[in-house]
């Protein structure tokens, strides 16, 4: 079964194989959203669960994510044509003063694997950009990432600016990154801190559905 193969090869991080399998699934006439949901996303779901359980670690997730990306790139033009409704819109970025984006990209991938539409603001993102984007793009969640202890405080600025702009009721603010803690989240008044990328995606999906 080709969809199961896609899922298994994605879990093993075999990007080239996944790409080939996705192409042959398309050639076989399978619907793009079926390939996406039952092949790629099913595989990514297993990765996410194992990651959360602690049975696999960042390296496996990164290589699986790359395989997912390569497969999804083939499906994207087909999916756009068909216009699949998204589960909700989220913006994400690494905060101002920080260029680390491997963790941020991982969360982005997990968010997309949950069917969420993601606006990626990249790195070195100011509080203004986060809040303005959330308003302009009608995002339900802002996700802020930081790896440097020295840049974490920007997350607090995002929370206060969102308050000033009066969007704290409509938009949830989620934070994460190596130096970030639950305690820090409470201290700055953000809505949620999650420990890993898979939990972040679950949380964001829950916020969007609420």
């Amino acid at each position, binding site marked *: 079964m080709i969809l199961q193969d896609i899922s298994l090869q994605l879990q093993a*991080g075999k990007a080239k194989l996944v790409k080939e399998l996705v192409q042959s699934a398309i050639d076989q006439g399978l619907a793009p959203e079926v390939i996406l949901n039952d092949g790629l996303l099913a595989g990514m779901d297993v990765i996410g669960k194992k990651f959360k359980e602690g049975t696999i670690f960042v390296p496996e997730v990164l*290589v699986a994510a790359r395989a997912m990306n390569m497969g999804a790139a083939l499906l994207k033009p087909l999916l756009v044509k068909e216009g699949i409704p998204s589960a909700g819109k989220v913006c994400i970025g690494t905060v101002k003063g*920080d*260029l680390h984006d491997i963790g941020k990209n991982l969360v982005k991938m997990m968010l997309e694997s949950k069917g969420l539409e993601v606006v990626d603001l990249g790195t070195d993102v100011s509080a203004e950009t986060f809040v303005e984007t959330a308003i302009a793009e009608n995002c339900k969640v802002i996700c802020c990432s930081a790896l440097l202890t*020295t840049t974490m405080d920007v997350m607090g600025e995002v929370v206060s600016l969102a308050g000033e702009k009066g969007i704290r009721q409509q938009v949830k603010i989620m934070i994460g990154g190596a130096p970030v803690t639950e305690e820090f989240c409470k201290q700055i008044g953000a809505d949620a801190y999650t420990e890993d990328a898979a939990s972040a995606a679950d949380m964001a999906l829950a916020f969007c559905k609420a």
Partner: protein
Amino acid sequence: MPVLHWKTAQKEYTLLFEGTPKVADLLREQGIPFPAPCGGKGTCGKCAVVLEGAVSAPNEAEKKAGCRLACQAVLLGEAWGAPLREDAPFARVEGTDYRPDTPLQGISAAIDIGTTTVALKVFGEDGSLLGEASGLNPQRVYAADVIGRIDAALKGKGEELQNAILDRMDTLLAAACQAGGIEKEDIVSFAVTGNTAMLYLLTGRSPASIATFPFRSETLFGETWELFGKPAYLPSCMNAFVGADITCALLASGMCEKEETALLCDVGTNGEIALWKDGKLYVTSTAAGPAFEGAEISRGCGYIPGAVDRLWMANGKLYAHTVGDLPAVGICGSGLLDAVACFLESEELDETGAMDGDFLPIAGDVTLTQKDVRALQLAKAAIAAGIEILLARAGVKEREIADVYLAGGFGTHLSPESAVKIGLLPRSFLGKIIPLGNAALQGACMLLGDPAPREKCNSLAASSIHVELGGSADFNDAFVEHMFF
């Protein structure tokens, strides 16, 4: 047929040979593990042996090393041999015996402030070594990593951090001076090197400019400061993340005096990489995390007595060497590399880094866990990707590189074969690797006398081209690409 009687701590071998082979070649041929990091160039001194019987006279390389080298000595007939200093197999390193060659103005001290370790040497006026000392950097209690310490300084702990390092330098200087039979007050000048953040914290400057992107350091030093009432030269840093320690290491390596294309790596928590090509110096830094220093590894430790520092496979069996031949207490960075290389060889680890079960036994109760392998994969991928992207940005092909200098403790102890096997370094680097030991400290020693090396440091730092890896798509791709083995 002539015979080499070879004796190690574990076993005695009787090795038959034909012709006049080099000792190292015979050992390799017979499958006896033996370090040859420099690939038989006779430059690293790591294959030191004791030899008796019908052997060649010591050649220039051996005279320079002060001992017989397995990669140089030729067997002429029946001979007896053993590894020299099995308990400290990597004790001798090129350049460690450096002494300032011009007369100094008086008793002088060179100090290297590492993020983890502080090391110093005190020299007499004639350039002779009077004493040396090293100890942990006490700032570690504030944060293990540089950025954590910068944050602490910005949150009002700057003075405490400065006092902590000054106190430690004072103690270490006192110890070194006592060994040399002099007083600390006899020292007339200093040269103090370290990464950019360490120099900020030492001098009590606010590190705000190097705390966040765009990391434009407001000073790059290359100036004389006052330490314990005496002039202290602080060498030039290249940028916020490639500091004076690398400038000094480059000076010590001498690679920027040569025509050949060369690479210098200091692999630690931060991997700093410098590339010299056609008179241009490209530098970068990449965050490897602390795995190579033993942190984040279940049984990880530094290069301490009882640390498993070398592992090898022979006849399908795993052999371990510990520092001081003591019962295994943990595994240090070089042992970790060997362990993963051995388990890849024995296929107990697959190319994705997965093992059956949760752990693999190493020595005694020391094991390698699945999580350890994952931590190592992140660290090695960061370094390997850093090298790849630095070369790509400079338009240099791997094979163009003539020499690869490894600075720092881990770089000095690691087995190049294992480093290549696990993909930390490209395969084409084998045979080109030159371990430097504490190159930052050696470079600082060179700055004590003649002013010319200071000028050299300034011009190197000023002309260095910084390659930023953070947030670039090609680096992220390369990072994932290098994750597997």
